[in-house]
């Protein structure tokens, strides 16, 4: 008999090491068969979708395999533009933070394909319950950039009236639910929304995101249980970007299984998808949507991706992982890959890309300056009376008295 030993998972590399992703199994596009969307959740065919990796784009930018979706080139260009805009906007706002123009910022670098593709697949009446790393959802739907800038600066024209931390947006008209800094706590709201839609015989779908780290929260398991029990028309997405601040996915439970595989225990299909492959994200979302629309309920999708940037402006990833891991992520960069695909099918070229990028840089610069003209954090804010609005539908005496006490 040997004594027990406590196992503490650790990533294969740390600062100072060469990045090493040799432990990852990356199957070629086409390796995972595509079951019918109304397949029984206990079907053997869903083992591959949960433990394999659904990919469409190969290394040369060609779409291959049974998951390859049919997308009009114009839509692909729209997706590319949304992803580019997301990256350029975030780079600009990150610099604004470093210049002291706001208190906090987070980037989604490397994860732009997820929100952009899903936002385009879902309809205007569907509702997404986001995390703070899916700005590309809003970009793909043409949310006004100036409203983002004003929210980030918490200035006089902030649509959320200075009440929220930068980037915790809310945009109901764009199918984007109110964000919160508590992780995972809206995952179950999506299920409730979807149940309400079904209750009303509506056709509005819900889609929710959660980070791989937050799948350890009870919210994740509660949401999956309710989604399964009531066949809620909801698409539940785990964005597995490998890192939860400084802890790697193994600490969240990925060492012995995949996040997609967790679906099986709830009687739901699980899809594990290359999150840096715009076409694969699109295809998986279409599959889950078709399943929900056929009244077969929820799907769990794991998007396998990589968080290229730090967790937030308060984080320095060089302290816990090799410095240039992001550039060596074996699934590449989602923008470069979609660009390569568009060029491969003759619908894009370098010159157009350079021109598009230049236009977007200009738009972002102009909009940022417009927001700065309204004011950056500390130099402009909504009327202080806004602090007291919206606590209740009708303010009670406490709010009225305290507002008077403050003289606003």
């Amino acid at each position, binding site marked *: 008999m040997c004594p027990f030993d406590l196992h503490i998972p650790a990533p294969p590399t740390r600062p100072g090491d060469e990045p090493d992703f040799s432990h990852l199994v990356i199957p070629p596009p086409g390796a995972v068969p595509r079951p019918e969307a109304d397949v029984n959740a206990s079907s053997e065919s869903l083992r591959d979708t949960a433990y394999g990796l659904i990919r469409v784009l190969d290394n040369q930018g060609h779409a291959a395999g049974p998951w390859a979706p049919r997308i009009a080139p114009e839509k692909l260009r729209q997706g590319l533009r949304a992803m580019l805009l997301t990256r350029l906007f975030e780079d600009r706002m990150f610099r604004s933070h470093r210049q002291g123009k706001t208190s906090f910022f987070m980037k989604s670098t490397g994860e732009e394909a997820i929100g952009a593709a899903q936002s385009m697949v879902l309809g205007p009446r569907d509702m997404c319950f986001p995390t703070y790393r899916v700005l590309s959802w809003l970009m793909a739907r043409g949310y006004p950039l100036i409203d983002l800038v004003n929210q980030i600066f918490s200035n006089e024209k902030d649509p959320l009236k200075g009440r929220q931390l930068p980037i915790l947006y809310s945009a*109901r008209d764009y199918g984007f639910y109110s964000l919160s800094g508590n992780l995972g*706590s*809206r995952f179950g*709201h999506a299920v409730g*929304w979807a149940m309400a*839609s079904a209750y009303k015989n509506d056709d509005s779908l819900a889609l929710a995101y959660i980070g791989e780290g937050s799948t350890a929260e009870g919210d994740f398991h*509660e949401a999956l*249980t309710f989604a399964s029990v009531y066949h809620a028309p909801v698409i539940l997405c785990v964005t597995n970007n490998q890192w939860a601040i400084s802890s790697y996915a193994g600490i969240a439970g990925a060492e012995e299984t995949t996040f997609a595989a967790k679906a099986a225990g709830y009687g739901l299909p699980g899809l594990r998808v290359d999150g840096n492959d715009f076409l694969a994200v699109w295809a998986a979302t279409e599959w889950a949507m078709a399943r929900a629309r056929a009244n077969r309920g929820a799907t769990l999708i794991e998007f396998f991706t990589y968080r290229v940037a730090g967790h937030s402006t308060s984080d320095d990833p060089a302290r816990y992982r090799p410095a240039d891991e992001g550039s060596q992520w074996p699934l590449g960069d989602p923008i470069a890959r979609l660009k390569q695909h568009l060029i491969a099918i003759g619908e894009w070229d370098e010159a157009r890309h350079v021109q598009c990028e230049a236009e977007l840089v200009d738009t972002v610069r102009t909009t940022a300056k417009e927001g700065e003209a309204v004011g950056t954090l500390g130099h402009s804010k909504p009327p202080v009376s806004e602090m007291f609005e919206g606590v209740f*539908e009708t303010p*009670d005496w406490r709010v009225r008295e305290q507002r008077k006490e403050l003289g606003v």
Partner: protein
Amino acid sequence: MAVMSMIQALNSALDVMLTRDPDVLTFGEDVGYFGGVFRVTEGLQKKHGARRCFDTPISEGGIIATAIGMGAYGLRPVAEIQFADYILPAFDQLVSEAARLRYRSNGEFWAPITVRAPYGGGIFGGQTHSQSPEALFAHVTGLCTVIPSNPYDAKGLLIAAIESNDPVIFLEPKRIYNGPFDGHHERQMKTWTDHAASDVPEGHYTVPLGKAATVREGKEVTVLAYGTMVHVASAAIAEFGIDAELIDLRSIVPLDVDAITQSVNKTGRCVIVHEASRFGGFGGELSALVQERCFFHLKSPILRVAGWDTPYPHAFEWDYFPGPGRVVKALRQAMEN
């Protein structure tokens, strides 16, 4: 009008709202086919169908998260938490989500949910079926907390809660579900039949949230109470033979602070009674408000009668419960000055 117990009145409120508003639905553990462990939802599934009154997994966090999502969509869900003692797994949902959704989204989303939960002691439920957590919710900006003390109010307040566009925690004093209880546990149980407030209209009516009721007018001392303790305080006032004014707060958020100040300014004395343990209890807030607003009218110190600062103990239920004897003692003390 019909004679109803509090359970029947609550059932009637749900029935009225399910009939009246297709966006109302109710769910919780054992709520559907069985009708709830306290029978509050009895017959509702049969009458309104399983889509409108159904069972949930044993998952308080999941129940409230689901309700919030439904509320954001546009429904008016009424969720039951089987005992208020079990509500804590849902605390994050209530505090971080339901209470703040309207504020943080600048009115784009809100949570018009009602969370019903039997609460309080007096039924030998031990630590996990007896607690009074109202102060936890009262402290959270954005939540309403309602506690009825009789069948008439229970129905009217529950309908008002369901119709409210703010999240409401609706705490039902389970000891008085079937009859008023004045704290004399050694005496025979009473039913609601002989109580005036058991005369309940069968149709729709509301008792507004944030409006206290003066149960008894008086000149010598103001007694503030809610839930079961209204009946305990009433008995104590009669037994001590004092001309006290008894105010049933009915909801602690919103709080009818005007009713409180008017009464204390008139009587000059104030005794606060609640079943929850004293330290950090809602009585502390009431005491501070009375001190801030009525100081120059006060003839004696504000007193609190409350549960002891221990967990709710099984064998010592009646040693813990702030019964009429302890209220009489406080009234006597208040009158010494």
